[in-house]
């Protein structure tokens, strides 16, 4: 049944392109909502086998080359499908007011969503790669047409980075395929590749995926792309697309080449830690609200990579949990930044600090406080649960890395609080060059819509639920991680 998320999203994309423009957003909403509903049902299904990569569909596709249309799911894929569904639904809710070319907008948006579901559910390497590359071009158009701030540059940079990562992944996939003679992921996960092959194929494949996950120093597409993207685009990028890379690194690179992972894991950890600290430090100096969030995304994805590098049960489970958590929090932060930008037409923190948004937009301010708290890793939110799990895992493998990560966590708190204060709670009216006459801030003509409130509430609920009761997710993630063969005993 979970396979229907893909078909629905692709069908919805086609429909929204060809039906009259008034229908486009309703089709998108129906598609995203049903996709979310399906992923929720699949996630909470009692009889499901979370530990094994259970086949859902298996149809020959190109028999001459051994390609199959093979979908499968385990606890990790279902978790990722869940966050995809949630982010997609909220992205549609937050782009309810897209006036310009809505048909194309929702076409590209649903294509990203459909492709992402496909990546998370593929059990055939070729199929996986088809879906993985399918997501690239829609991102270009979403950003270049509906974006802001240097959009064409940001879109092109993001697309070329993604495609470059894709090319590396391509080489890795071909190396596995031509050596093992099969494209079937479960079969490949049993195949013993020579350590000579793993030594070069693993870093190529891993780096290809990690580019999409925002690994330092190839992360620069992420902040630029996030800033240039429209609200829904940033939400999809942070919520789903960066997860595609991390998921690929876990499902394909690490699971196929365990010896390569052993050889390279300390370098992965080094890059991850540099990413965490460096991105947080850069975020501290940004004046564009979206740049702050963009760099915070890179920093948070660094945690995912650190968890993967630890390659033990806690680390990897925490990484998957962090993928979910950051998907939700990142989407929420970008959504709120978009709401603010839509009303004030600025994202500059110094400009925002003169507006006292805390009073004019109490709901947004409240939601932003929650999102910031979650992002900083305050206990009770998903970010805490995920990061503590990762750090516990990383402690066993790389104690030194955890020490450095501590610096990063302080910096995360610092830039988050700085952005929060400046954007919503500063009272810099009198420092502003424009004289402010009234003492009472004027409410914006454009009130927060119901759709926006609903979307934000859903995301807040998700981060709270996962934070207060992380076992809900971990019970499904851990068996699947335990089944991975790279796991150190």
């Amino acid at each position, binding site marked *: 049944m979970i396979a229907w998320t893909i078909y629905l999203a692709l069908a919805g994309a086609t429909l929204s392109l060809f039906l009259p423009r008034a229908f486009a957003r309703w089709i998108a909403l129906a598609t995203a909502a049903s996709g979310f509903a399906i992923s929720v049902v699949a996630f909470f299904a009692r009889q499901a086998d979370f530990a094994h990569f259970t086949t859902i569909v298996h149809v020959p596709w190109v028999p*001459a080359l051994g390609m199959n249309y093979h979908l499968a799911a385990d606890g990790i894929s279902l978790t990722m499908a869940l966050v995809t569904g949630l982010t997609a639904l909220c992205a549609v809710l937050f782009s309810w007011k897209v006036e310009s070319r809505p048909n194309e907008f929702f076409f590209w948006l649903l294509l990203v969503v459909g492709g992402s579901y496909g990546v998370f559910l593929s059990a055939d390497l070729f199929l996986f790669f088809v879906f993985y*590359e399918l997501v*690239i071009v829609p991102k270009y158009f979403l950003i270049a047409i509906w974006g802001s701030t240097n959009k*064409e540059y940001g879109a092109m940079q993001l697309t*070329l980075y993604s495609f470059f990562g894709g*090319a590396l992944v391509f080489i890795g996939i071909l190396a596995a395929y031509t050596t093992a003679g099969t494209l079937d992921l479960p079969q490949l996960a049993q195949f013993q590749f020579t350590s000579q092959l793993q030594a070069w194929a693993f870093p190529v494949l891993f780096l290809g995926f990690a580019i999409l996950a925002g690994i330092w120093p190839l992360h620069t597409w992420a902040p630029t792309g996030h800033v240039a993207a429209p609200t829904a685009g940033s939400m999809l990028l942070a919520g789903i697309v960066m997860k595609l890379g991390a998921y690929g690194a876990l499902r394909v690179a690490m699971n196929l080449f365990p010896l390569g992972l052993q050889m390279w894991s300390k370098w992965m950890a080094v890059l991850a830690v540099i990413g965490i600290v460096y991105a947080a430090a850069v975020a501290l100096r940004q004046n564009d609200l979206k740049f702050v969030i963009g760099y915070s995304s890179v920093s948070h994805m660094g945690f995912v990579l650190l968890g993967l590098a630890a390659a033990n049960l806690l680390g990897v489970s925490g990484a998957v949990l962090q993928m979910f958590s950051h998907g939700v929090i990142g989407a929420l932060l970008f959504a709120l930044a978009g709401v603010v930008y839509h009303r004030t037409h600025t994202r500059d923190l110094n400009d925002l600090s003169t507006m006292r948004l805390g009073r004019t937009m109490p709901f947004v301010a409240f939601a932003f406080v929650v999102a910031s708290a979650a992002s900083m890793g305050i206990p009770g939110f998903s970010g805490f649960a995920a990061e503590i799990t990762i750090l516990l895992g990383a402690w066993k493998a790389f104690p030194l890395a955890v020490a450095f990560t501590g610096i990063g966590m302080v910096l995360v708190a610092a830039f988050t609080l700085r952005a929060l204060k400046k954007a919503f709670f500063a009272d810099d009216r009198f420092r502003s060059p424009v004289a402010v006459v009234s003492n009472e801030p004027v409410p914006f003509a454009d009130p927060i819509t119901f759709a926006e409130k609903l979307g934000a509430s859903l995301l807040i609920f998700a981060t709270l639920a996962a934070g207060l009761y992380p076992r809900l997710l971990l019970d499904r993630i851990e068996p699947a991680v335990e089944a991975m063969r790279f796991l150190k005993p």
Partner: protein
Amino acid sequence: MIYLDLVRLALPEIILVVTALTVLSIGLARKRMLGICSGMAAAGLLFASAAVLQLPPHALLFHGMIVISPLNSFFKIVCLALAFFTVILAQSKRSLPNDGEFLALILLGTVGLLLLVGSEELLMIFIGLELTGLSLYVLTAFNKADTHSAEAGLKYFLFGSMASAFTLFGLSYIYGLTGTTALGAIASKMSAGPVQPLLMAGIVMTLIGFAFKIAAAPFHLWAADAYQGAPIPAAAFIASGSKVASFFVLGKIVLVGLGPAHGSAGWHAMVGGWSPVLAALAALSIVVGNLTALAQRNVRRLLAYSAVAHAGYTLLGLVAAGREGFSATLFYTTIYAITLVGAFGVVAFVRRETGGDDLSDFAGLRNRSPLLAGCMAIFMLSLAGLPPLAGFFGKFYLFSVALHAGPNHGLLWLVALALLGSLISLYYYLIILKAIFLDESNMTGFALRPDFLQRSALTLLAASVLLLGVVPDALLQRILATLS
């Protein structure tokens, strides 16, 4: 009764020649008869395809001068279909005088392609090459009033005749050393003993002629001018039908005829033979084509340089050799030809409306004609190799075959280079799409309106690019089944 057999087995070619002569005489008798002429030409192509389908599965005439096999018949149909679409889309070209002559030349060129595809004998192959080449030279220079067209024609002719001279010279060496012109016999002669250096020289010279035909660097210099200056249908024909047939014959010559002199192009294991030569051509084409395409502002010129790069990718299959390698090359070149016929169709409409084919003429095409914009997006993204379009599967197949060939992933260097080339190419294809979908044009209230037939032709081409990407087995199965 061998001449009766000749009529029976060469019926498609005969039909085309008769159609060409009829179209020519109609065109001479009455000016401005484009509708009737192109209708007749299209009908002739359809009849010829029907005749190909009626051929027996296997037949041999004049010791391999004409060979009928399922593979040859299939690629005859591909060439005829490409010519058919070229003729349909050529209708938009209103500015040409003497439509009859133009169409007749396309048909004669197609006859050359059929001879080329349907022969396994060096002399016949050379005759096919020349027949195609001469038709194409004239087609390129057809627009007499346009200096670009004349310049392109002259360049194409000079380069082309030079390359033909090389080929003929090379073929004479091969004949002189093996004593035969039939491909199969050459192979058996060559496998008897070691490859002589003189034969190697002959092989290299033959390859040079084909490198010219497929526009592989450094023999690509004519391509940019021909693609840009030639009348658009002529350019489309050069880029599609001629290319498919050339790759097909090149593949047959190197894999069937020269198989024993394969050599090896592996990074640490280079062995003399034709495959290192082809690998060098491929690498150079990929680098030169992609880097030069980056700087182009004219869409036709850009497509020309990208064609150079694609020739490089396609050669990968031949370098890998074997049945798999040949089928990957054939799959890719077929897909590529379909895509380019469509892309040139779109360019033709834009040129008719705006009078130019620079990137700026494509600005805002989305508002003027969503259909053309959508089709162009499909063609460009397929060329860039993005799923779910046919170009993606083609590249995956080519690269996996290349990496599979030989021990220790010897061709990894070439595959990595090709992937890097694809990355560069994505940039310039996106620049075209950016012009179409993002840029605003100053032309307002001015809608491109292709007629029904052309709309359906374009939609059909775009749909087949999409479908062959989703269900590549439809074409792949056919090619693999016909390759023995």
